[in-house]
């Protein structure tokens, strides 16, 4: 079992956790997409904080940089572009029945996950007997992630690059306006 | 005559030739259609060509009448050629007492059916006649097939042209009727295919590859449990075709919507395939099940219900063709009663009803077709008092109607009398109930007859009806001759069927006891 972390660590962990949940709830219930997007950004910041607390410094940074910074910006950009800001037209939350049903389904999902965590795990999912606690800090935040990335998962890494390339080309192709010189 | 036939080895080549001629005819007529187009002249040549083919077919098949050896009950005029080696199916043909009369009935009715539709079919004449020729190959194929696989193939070959004939040249609701007819028969016969394949494999066990030869399968002794579902499969396929009581609803629709010639063949020959199937396959192959008391009584009960139900419903039909269709259900009920009562007289009676019904109902449909051509209505109440205007038509309709309700002196009586007197010995109560069918038959037929040809001539459009012309008369006289001949002197026909009927009865009863005994010991 990992050494019990200090009280300071626990408090901050719970703080960021609750903040994340609160902002997620806010995100889901906002009518206007812009407010929703901003709440989502706040969720991401809290998560980044949690990553750092769990010694995943590089991932935390990436989270803020890429996720909150890039992807959410693109979202906001598109919302602005399509002028979807005003809330009334998109009162899209489907009536009380929709929400109650969604809530019920959510609770059921949660209950099942909790129930699952109680059940006996399959052998392959058992936590290893010699857990790596925190890992050696020697390679620094980026090194600990970069080393396996460029050795074991090199192929996956290359593939993601190709993926990004196609995504960009696809986005441009789809998004392009149907101009006269279109073949 | 028999000597002459033996001289030219008639028996060796007759059956394949009988199947081949219509196919060649079909190809010729179809090709002629493609070449000469659809003009009136071309259509007329198509009709003449088809008629010639059928007349040739009939002339050839008459030889069978003499060449059949009346004493022996096993296969005659056998023709055997390899077909698909891998599956062990052979192009084996043969004829015996049960099927010879059906072959003759087919070749006798076909030219008359074509003559019947001479002027009523105007659109796509070539296709129509090509399909008719193909249909004949299918029907004849089923009657003479000695190989079970060939039996099934011909069963389907016969189904497709009929579907098109009803579907294209039929009445208003023809699509619904032809679809219903096709799906009803096809669905039931798929089960039969499964059973045939199972039998083929079981029979082929010792040879290493499946064989569908009739005698090989006949010699098989199957586990009792298997025989039940096998019989069930065959029963369903044939019961739909007969049609027996609960499976009969396709018949009125198919009859009402089919063109005249279609109805004649549908009633005259196609219905007999079901009963022929029982006689040829269901009974000899699974005597234990067929004669099992519960199964046998149930089937006979269904047959008797069919007789009474068919007659009662025919009583209230406004449409003459539907009335005749339901009367066919009643007549076929008698056939099933005859078959499952299993005495020599009742089986002979069943065969006679099959032939007699072919003639009487065929003639009825031809007559309805003739009057329909003039008035374009099938409703009985649209007529009335036409005996004064078309006396010849009225007389022939009366004679045929009387033969259909079984008046002595016509084929109807001889057939139904034999069925009932035969089945009375094994199932007295059931025969008693089916005998009431005789009264109901008189009721519905005479009531319809009176509303059509007697009573006041009150509808102006009926006053100007033309009586029968020479073609129509020439078409009906042979059938009338057949009806009266089989009524007064049926002996030659009976002699030809006696040996096979006796063999069927003795074999089935003997095997039934043996199988039921093994069933009791083996238990299920």
């Amino acid at each position, binding site marked *: 079992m*990992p050494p019990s972390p200090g009280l300071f660590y*626990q408090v901050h*962990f*719970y703080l960021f*956790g609750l903040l994340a*949940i609160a902002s*997620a*709830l806010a*995100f*889901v219930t906002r009518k206007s*997409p812009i407010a*929703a*997007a901003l709440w989502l950004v706040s*969720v991401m910041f809290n998560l980044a904080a949690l*990553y750092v607390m*769990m010694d*995943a410094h*590089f*991932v935390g940074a*990436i*989270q803020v940089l*890429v*996720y909150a910074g*890039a*992807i959410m910006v*693109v*979202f906001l950009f*598109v919302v602005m572009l*399509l002028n*979807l800001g005003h809330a009334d037209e*998109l009162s899209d*939350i489907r009536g009380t029945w*929709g*929400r109650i*049903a*969604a809530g019920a*389904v*959510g*609770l059921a*999902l949660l209950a099942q*996950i*909790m129930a699952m*965590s109680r059940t006996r795990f399959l052998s392959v999912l058992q*936590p290893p007997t010699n*857990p*790596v606690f925190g*890992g050696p800090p020697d390679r620094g935040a980026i090194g*600990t992630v970069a*080393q396996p990335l460029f050795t074991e*998962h090199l192929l996956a890494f290359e593939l*993601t690059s190709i*993926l*990004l390339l196609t995504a*960009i080309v*696809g*986005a441009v*192709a*789809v*998004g392009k*306006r149907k101009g006269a010189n279109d073949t | 005559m028999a000597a002459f036939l033996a001289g030219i080895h008639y028996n060796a080549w007759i059956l394949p030739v009988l199947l081949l001629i219509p196919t060649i005819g079909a190809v010729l007529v179809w090709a002629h259609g493609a070449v000469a187009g659809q003009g009136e002249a071309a259509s007329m040549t198509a009709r003449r060509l088809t008629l010639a083919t059928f007349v040739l077919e009939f002339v050839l098949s008459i030889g069978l009448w003499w060449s059949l050896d009346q004493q022996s009950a096993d296969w005659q005029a056998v023709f055997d050629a390899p077909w698909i080696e891998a599956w062990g199916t052979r192009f084996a043909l043969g004829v015996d007492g049960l099927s010879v009369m059906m072959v003759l009935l087919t070749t006798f009715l076909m030219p008359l059916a074509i003559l019947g539709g001479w002027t009523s079919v105007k659109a796509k004449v070539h296709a129509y006649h090509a399909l008719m020729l193909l249909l004949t190959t299918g029907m004849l194929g089923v009657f003479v097939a000695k190989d079970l696989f060939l039996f099934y193939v011909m069963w389907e070959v016969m189904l497709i042209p009929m579907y098109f004939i009803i579907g294209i040249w039929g009445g208003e609701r023809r699509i619904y009727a032809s679809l219903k007819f096709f799906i009803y028969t096809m669905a039931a016969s798929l089960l039969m295919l499964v059973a045939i394949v199972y039998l083929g494999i079981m029979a082929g066990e010792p040879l290493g590859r499946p064989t569908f030869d009739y005698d090989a399968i006949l010699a098989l002794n199957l586990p009792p449990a298997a025989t039940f579902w096998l019989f069930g499969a065959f029963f369903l396929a044939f019961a739909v075709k007969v049609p027996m009581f609960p499976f009969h609803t396709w018949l009125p629709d198919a009859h009402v919507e089919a063109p005249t010639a279609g109805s004649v063949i549908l009633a005259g020959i196609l219905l007999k395939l079901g009963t022929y199937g029982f006689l040829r396959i269901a009974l000899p192959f699974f005597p234990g099940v067929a004669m099992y008391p519960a199964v046998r009584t149930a089937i006979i009960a269904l047959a008797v219900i069919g007789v009474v139900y068919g007659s009662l419903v025919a009583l209230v039909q406004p449409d003459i063709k539907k009335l005749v269709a339901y009367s066919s259900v009643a007549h076929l009920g008698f056939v099933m009663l005859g078959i499952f009562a299993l005495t020599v007289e009742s089986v002979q009676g069943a065969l006679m009803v099959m032939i007699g019904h072919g003639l009487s109902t065929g003639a009825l449909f031809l007559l309805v077709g003739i009057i329909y051509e003039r008035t374009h209505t099938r409703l009985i109440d649209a007529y009335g008092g036409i005996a004064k205007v078309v006396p010849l038509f009225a007389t022939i309709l009366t004679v045929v109607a009387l033969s259909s309700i079984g008046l002595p002196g016509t084929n109807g009586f001889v057939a139904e009398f034999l069925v009932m007197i035969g089945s009375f010995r094994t199932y007295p109560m059931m025969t008693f109930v089916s005998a009431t069918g005789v009264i109901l038959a008189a009721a519905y037929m005479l009531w319809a007859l009176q509303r059509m040809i007697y009573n006041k001539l009150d509808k102006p459009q009926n006053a100007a009806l033309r009586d029968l012309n020479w073609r129509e008369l020439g078409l009906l006289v042979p059938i009338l001759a057949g009806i009266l001949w089989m009524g007064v002197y049926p002996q030659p026909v009976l002699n030809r069927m006696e040996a096979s009927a006796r063999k069927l009865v003795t074999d089935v009863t003997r095997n039934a006891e043996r199988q039921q005994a093994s069933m009791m010991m083996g238990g299920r």
Partner: protein
Amino acid sequence: MIPEALALSAVLFTIGAIGVLTRRNAILIFMCVELMLNAVNLTFVALSKLYGVTGQVFVVFVMTVAAAEAAVGLAIIIAIFRHGQTVNLKNINLLKG
């Protein structure tokens, strides 16, 4: 502290799922999907403390995929918007069976 992290991730995931179910606006549904992906990333990170750093590597991959997906998805939404002037899911049913 891992169990708490996993519980948090489960809650976030559920909220994301609820968001997807209740929303009609295509873009907001995308965002909810992003939220669900973040929840999964959280699990990865939490468990990477036990199973080693491959978890974090995986998070990187998830992020790249999320980015690609967002890009393409938004492009499609723009195309749809240009076509039907709406992103309300109710009217976008060209895929009707």
